[in-house]
């Protein structure tokens, strides 16, 4: 196993789970995160996400000192909560454990319960899987904790709950628009499409407007059904499954809605559940996409790609590539995702990867590339070095994009997202071909 021939992680393809937690919390209306641990983690997480989203990301820390590390961080957490309350006045404070508070065994949940009695507004503890997890698992852990722990609403508000993966803000907006054409009331959670992609404010708002309404989270247990896009997600951090087993809310684990098939799965389900409301707008969008598939098939067919990043993202992109005849030769995710291989295979029909590997770092990925013929690399901007060193055309998408503008509003999902991906991928291949041509050419 990995443990035995362990060397070290070289150039990690993941970040820690508390980052995933704070990202999820950013998608909740009026919420504020506190990282229960040292100041550094919160600051680093902010810095990392600011580089991607280019938006304010205020995350508080309980700012451990040496004494709190030895005697426990209870009093620090309490003053953090009071100070955050005073300055940010959030409707919900989500407290996440960090590696440090986990290691010293602080009972964050108990501290929060205690503070809940004294402070007005809700304080929820989130227990991410800190060690061995990654940002994606932290993200799902947060969503699951929130639907489980949020104070319950009495009345049913929405027909369905949608639990997206770590998507771009454009993806979330698309998803909401699509679902809205079938259902009047639904919940997408978390929804950072506005909180992390809003307009200029003019004054600094302590908490960005937007996010999943708290009421809906509290009423999620009353919905008719839920949809999630990570079919092989582990039980403890699976919000859809949790609502199903604990509250009988029917759960549909769909494949990522990236590419025609993924989006078809989603629209078909929505159509069926809403009483066959077909939607002309999306049908036309789908038709245009298939037309574009035809226009570009000669440039894509038979090409060989590497895809890496978060498990869900890789599965979705691989599924899309498979549709246009590009073989995802190497599929790698940084997340320690046990069912990754099964997941990838379940998304492919026409092509077969040579390597499918979870829990990789970029060193491993680079080694895997040795001697393999590759036309294209698709993934977050952290693969830039490999792409540059090996001179392989590179399409940046996923999380994080630190070296480009527009990363967070790259549209991947739905018919329109597939169109966007298709154009990027095909044009990248065309550019490479054009650049390599001794004469250059003006017509394709």
């Amino acid at each position, binding site marked *: 196993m990995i443990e035995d021939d362990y060397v070290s992680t070289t150039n*990690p393809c993941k970040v820690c789970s508390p980052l995933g937690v704070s990202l999820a919390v950013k998608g909740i209306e009026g919420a504020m995160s506190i990282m229960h641990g040292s100041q550094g983690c919160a600051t680093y997480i902010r810095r990392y996400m600011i580089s991607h989203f280019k938006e304010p990301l205020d995350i508080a820390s309980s700012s451990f000192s040496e004494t709190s590390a030895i005697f426990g961080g209870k009093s620090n957490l309490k003053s953090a909560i009071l100070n955050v309350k005073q300055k940010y006045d959030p409707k919900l404070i989500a407290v996440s454990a960090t590696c440090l508070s986990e290691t010293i065994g602080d009972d964050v949940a108990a501290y929060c319960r205690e503070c809940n009695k004294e402070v007005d507004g809700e304080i929820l503890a989130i227990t991410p899987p800190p060690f061995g997890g990654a940002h994606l698992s932290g993200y799902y852990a947060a969503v699951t904790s929130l639907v489980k722990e949020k104070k319950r609403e009495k009345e049913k508000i929405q027909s369905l709950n949608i639990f997206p993966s770590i998507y771009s803000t454009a993806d979330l907006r698309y998803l909401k628009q699509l679902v809205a054409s079938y259902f009047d009331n639904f919940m997408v959670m978390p929804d950072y499409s506005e909180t992390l992609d809003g307009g200029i404010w003019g004054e600094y708002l302590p908490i960005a407007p937007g996010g999943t309404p708290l009421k809906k989270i509290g009423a999620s247990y009353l919905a008719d059904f839920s949809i999630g896009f990570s079919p092989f997600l582990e039980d403890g951090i699976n919000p859809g499954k949790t609502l199903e087993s604990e509250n009988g809310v029917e759960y549909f684990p769909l494949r990522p809605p990236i590419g025609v098939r993924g989006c078809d799965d989603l629209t078909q389900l929505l159509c069926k559940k809403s009483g066959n409301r077909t939607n002309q707008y999306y049908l036309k969008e789908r038709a245009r996409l298939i037309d574009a598939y035809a226009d570009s098939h000669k440039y894509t067919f038979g090409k060989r790609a590497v895809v890496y990043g978060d498990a869900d993202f890789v599965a979705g992109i691989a599924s899309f590539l498979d549709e246009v005849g590009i073989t995802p030769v190497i599929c790698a995710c940084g997340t320690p995702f046990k069912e990754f291989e099964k997941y990838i295979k379940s998304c492919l029909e026409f092509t077969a990867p040579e390597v499918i590997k979870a829990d990789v770092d970029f060193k491993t990925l680079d080694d895997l590339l040795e001697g393999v013929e590759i036309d294209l690399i698709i993934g977050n901007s952290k693969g830039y070095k490999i792409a540059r060193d090996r001179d392989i055309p590179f399409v940046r998408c996923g999380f994080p994009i630190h070296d480009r503008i527009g990363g967070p509003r790259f549209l991947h999902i739905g018919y329109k997202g597939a169109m966007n991906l298709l154009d990027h991928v095909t044009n990248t291949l065309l550019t490479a071909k054009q650049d390599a041509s001794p004469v250059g050419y003006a017509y394709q």
Partner: protein
Amino acid sequence: MSSSLLNERKDQVWIKSEKEGTLTCDKESLAGAVSQRACVFCGSRVVLYPVADALHIVHGPIGCASFTWDIRGSLSSGPELHRLSFSTDLKEKDVVFGGEKKLERALLKLIEEHKPKATFVFATCITGIIGDDIGAVCKKVGLKVGIPVIPVHSEGFKGTKKDGYKAACDALAKIVGTGDISQVPKLSINILGEFNLAGEAWMIQKYYEQMGIEVVSILTGDGRVEKISKSHGASLNVVQCSGSLSYLAKQMEEDYGIPYKRVSYFGIEDMSKALYDVADFFSDYPGVREKAESVVRDELSRIIPEIEKYKRILAGKRAAVYVGGAFKAFSLIKALKLIGMSVVIAGSQTGNREDYEQLKILSDPGCIIVDDSNPLELSDFVIAKRADLFIGGVKERPIAFKLGIGFCDHNHERKIALAGYKGMINFFKEVHDSVMSPVWNFSPRKFGQLGEIL
């Protein structure tokens, strides 16, 4: 003054000519205050990062390493080992049973593979808590592989970023003094606290070389272990960046009798002073001062017309400065004055008492001086003072943009050289392009109240 100011923080804010007394600083960050500061580990990582032929491994959970992978703009003229991120990626099992074995194995393999000239092992919060004896592992591995394997005591929670600087200096001190200095000339210096962001160290080094002075070692910009090992042969340490390497300068004065001078390479005045101070130190050597004067003259004649151009456009604009170290703030204030801009907010994450006293002297009446601030305070100050420009780091950038004003990056991640004479022009161009961009005409603040356009 400000609704966003927490009571406990009132003493950390001071307004010139309104408030008597001193500013409180050197405090731990207040819990829940959303401080812009990082941790001890961060301080060490910043200082040691540019040593390009050393292996830097983070002993801890994956976050600490991920967050610091290749984020600095420090260039190397040769090896690039510093730009890779190595970590022991501690898991639950390691936390229970200890991570020493894992660290040892990782070190042996990585050293064999990358053949570094030295290795730095960074402690993090977790290693601090589980009590791994990093020192013992380093010693053991060092003996086996025959290169310095140096523990860096940078446990995140054991203080502030400043303590991290100290830990880094302690680590560097273990290399200083180990090399052969028989070939080092008397007319020589080390440059401390210069990290070669966007090639700045090369520029500075050239100025000194034009004065006939050899630069033995730059700590740590474009750093090499061998050069550091010989640095005790130099006659003078020139310390740029107040906080980070003054510990090492003091240490070297004690251990090797090398005096040091504090300088800054930002701004014309400070840059020129940095050359003259060194020239004066070597006043026994004929011609050094003259050469310094000629360097300054040449450079100035080239840039003065440029400066005049920017002054015509930018005079009267107002800037907010919030940076890591206070020394940088001093230089920025002086530089901005040169083009007729005023500084209305000046603050730092890690200033000490002397630093803030100096800031008070340098600043204009009404200027807000602040220690260890946060987004809510900073944005309140910017609005109250009607700043046109914010100068800070990545975390301050979205604050400026949300308020609809220009922003300049002045931290370790920037890719533009801002030091030296040429850097000054780069800086003014950056300020100009940020303040004068037409995009701000579309921002709500230009319309008065936000409500009017919504």
